């Protein structure tokens, strides 16, 4: 990734003069990936592991995720931690829509990724039916190491910019069309009954 790579490789010796020039896109991508704040979307047991990752032992702020912003306005990564019930689905979509661009989603745990062991009427079988998911973290609940691995994968995706091309293609939606007039009709039609 240009000049920054030289510094990474051979330290300050790699710099030929005392300032760094780089393409603005590299700087932006580097800034976005190195300081992305998570939106605390803790639902169930995975939320406890997410708090454990954020706490003193596993210390998520080493990776730039210093603090979990409660309001979606100040968050970049939405970590869906836990099982999403049918009643929670519109709320999840609303919070995702209210997040500022650019935004990413990590689906933490098998319940968020695919409904997990609860293959029944109450749980949305996979959160990617509601919001576009970028990284899936396996495990029930994923240990903090798995979550940090998922976050690092997402940082790498942001850094090499692959994610933004895909995002531009389907304008950031999950092919989910939000219809307000449907609220009055039948219940949430997610997954087959």
């Amino acid at each position, binding site marked *: 990734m240009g000049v920054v790579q030289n510094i990474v490789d051979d330290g300050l010796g790699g710099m030929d003069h005392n300032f760094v020039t780089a393409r603005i896109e590299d700087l932006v991508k580097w800034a976005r990936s190195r300081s992305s704040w998570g939106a605390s979307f803790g639902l169930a047991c995975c939320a406890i592991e997410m708090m454990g990752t954020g706490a003193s032992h596993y210390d998520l702020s080493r990776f730039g995720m210093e603090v979990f912003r409660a309001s979606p306005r100040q968050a970049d990564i939405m970590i869906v931690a836990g099982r999403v019930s049918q009643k929670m689905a519109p709320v999840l979509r609303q919070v995702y829509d209210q997040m500022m661009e650019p935004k990413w989603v990590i689906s933490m745990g098998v319940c968020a990724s695919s409904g997990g062991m609860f293959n029944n*009427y109450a749980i949305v079988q996979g959160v990617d039916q509601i919001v576009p998911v970028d990284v899936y973290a396996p495990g029930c609940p994923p240990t903090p190491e798995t979550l940090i691995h998922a976050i690092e994968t997402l940082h790498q995706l942001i850094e090499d910019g692959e994610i933004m091309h895909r995002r531009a293609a389907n304008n950031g939606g999950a092919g989910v069309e939000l219809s307000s007039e*449907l609220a009055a009709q039948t219940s949430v*039609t997610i997954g087959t009954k």
Partner: protein
Amino acid sequence: MTIISAGTAEGGQELLSRSELTAKELLREVGSVLRLSESEAALLAEVETEAPEDQTMIINMGPQHPSTHGVLRLMLELQGETVLRCKPIIGYLHTGMEKTGEALTYMQGGTNVTRMDYLSPLNNELVFSMAVEKLLGIDGDIPERAVWMRMLLSELNRMSSHLLFLATNGMDLGAVSMMLYGWREREDVLRFFQKVTGLRMNHNFIRPGGLAADLPAGWRDDVLAILEGLPSRLEEYDILMTGQPIWRERLQGVGVITAQEAIALGATGPILRSTGVAWDLRRDMPYLHYDKMEFDVIVGQYGDAYDRYSIRFNEIRESMRIVYQILENMPSGDFRIQNKKVTPPPRARIDESMEALIHHFKIFTEGFKVPVGEVYVAIESPRGEIGCYIVSDGSSNPYRMHVRAPSFVNIQTMPHMMRGGLVADAVAVISSVDPVLGEVDR
């Protein structure tokens, strides 16, 4: 392309304006416990003269909120900063666990039940396993070592759950560093659980008939290492929180509930004990070997959030005392009952005896059959009395598996405690009730 309705309104379940409510419902939302009929008239008078409709504001302390401990949605009617009415709306984490419980066999039931109260998973498994054993009629002859191991694990689980309460209670009231300290202790306990059961949470380790495996070698000094490090740190937290006038000012006199109201609402655990009623199932209706244990039941006097904080704080010390006694007389022997109809045979015997192989195969594929009957067993979880009601129809799946969750009932005391307090006190009340939404919504 799936279409989802953008509507998140829940109609009748929401907080309606005062005119649409029946008198009884208005009194309930205002937080009066109807059983005390003589105070009802006084309260009714006070309610009427309150702020007219247009001065109050109905706001959402919604499912996605940093201080609602999960996906609890509270609708508050505020006049300025004072909370007049409150209605908890739940169901945002409803996982249909009781329906799933009917589709799983008794052997697999533990995995479903352990995800209800995800702060004390071992207590859920314990109550489910004890209920199944009572149905099978083998609850008398579980080997000694299994009983003592179950007590050890459920006490350590109580300590890790109360440590998390200290962490979140501190963070909710602004002492964010308490979050880091509380988690530091909890990580030690979770690492011990990972070594014993293989997982940090959702262990499925306590199963009908005993335990899944024996304690690993060197478990005794792991437990001693946890217990030695804790008292000095608890002193630190005492200075950081109990000794601090700001902390006491924020919690004392907030969320008061009397003994009659707690009993009328069915609240159990630290909420009931904070009103002075010394009711702890480990002592009053002992199960496992708690009657041989020497420990104090911690009781409060004022019934407010500060009492509940110090009750849970001191219950960690009591649990440490119990774990020391368990360490002294942990017997050796079998970690599960050798009844071939219920538990799989030891691994070694499967190679040499055909019959053991058949039993192993039958138990793991079809599950063991439980005689017809219905039973209700209750134990003391960190949040109160957790009960498991199982109806069995003789097959290998429970016909009806209902878990009485303490947080489900404790949440109903919130409207009563929040009445008249500020919004900041509402946060203190939620964190003093310490609900876990996994077991509330089941």
